[in-house]
């Protein structure tokens, strides 16, 4: 089975729309994505890389456990939907996993993807990035994901 060596442009473009808050454009671009396994693998690698990049920007490298607990509580306390969607234990472990390879294999793939996307969305929204800042964020995540895929 062949794997793409890079994250496809249209995957990056879809998430650019999502993180810009343009949900209509996100919907259109996301629905148009190739559903092949190879692209899904790249999609997952890219979301994972955005998550790592966002966590690194917000909490720094190797954040203390207390800081992770506080951060997850802060974002879950913002609204009931986030509180329900983000299991605190799973989300904390995901954040710790960015730096320390702690096992997260018990967390279902769809759940982990959902957690990554929600946390990235919150961190990017809080950062209030301009267009250039968002592009730089996506590019760094893309480079990281390409390294993983390559």
């Amino acid at each position, binding site marked *: 089975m062949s794997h793409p060596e890079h994250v496809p442009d249209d995957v990056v473009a879809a998430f650019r729309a999502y993180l810009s808050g343009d949900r209509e454009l996100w919907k259109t671009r996301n629905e148009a994505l190739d559903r092949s396994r190879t692209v899904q693998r790249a999609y997952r690698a890219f979301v994972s890389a955005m998550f790592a990049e966002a966590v690194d920007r917000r909490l720094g490298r190797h954040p203390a456990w207390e800081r992770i*607990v506080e951060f997850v*509580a802060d974002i879950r*306390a913002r609204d009931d939907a986030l509180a329900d969607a983000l299991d605190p234990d799973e989300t904390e472990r995901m954040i710790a996993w960015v730096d320390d390879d702690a096992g997260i294999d018990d967390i279902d793939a769809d759940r982990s993807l959902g957690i990554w996307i929600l946390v990235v969305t919150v961190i990017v929204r809080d950062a209030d990035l301009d267009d250039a800042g968002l592009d730089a964020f996506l590019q760094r995540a893309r480079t990281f994901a390409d390294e993983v895929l390559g």
Partner: protein
Amino acid sequence: MPVEVSDWHVDLVRTFLRQDDGKLKPMLGQMPRTYEVDGTGVLLWAAFVEATFRRFPDGNVADIIRFVAHVRIRRGRNAPPISPAAAEKLIISALTATEADGLTDLEKGQHIILLSELIEDEALTDAQLDAFLDVARTHAKHIAASL
């Protein structure tokens, strides 16, 4: 036989909440070895319900989430862990008088730790703790009567 909440049960819970380990240890040795719900269990749950109502009078979920995080950080990473999702469910269950679904027996027992932490935050005087336990005992009698 109906569950009764005696003066001894109240003294046991008071000793636990005051963290008077020297007195608590022999009292725990006198507890009956049973898995049946007894006066201690009913009083601890009643006290937990009363403490949650005092702390979260509006039932605000954001406050509950922040409190659980605060407790976990205060206890530290090396303390016996509290499951945050279970702790939040227990507090909501106490506030809404509903069953906390999907919890293990170990997770259900976390209300005892949460009670202790809620009382620690209150920094009650002896007289205030006695008044608190009086209210909890009254709640416990109602709970015991419904068992």
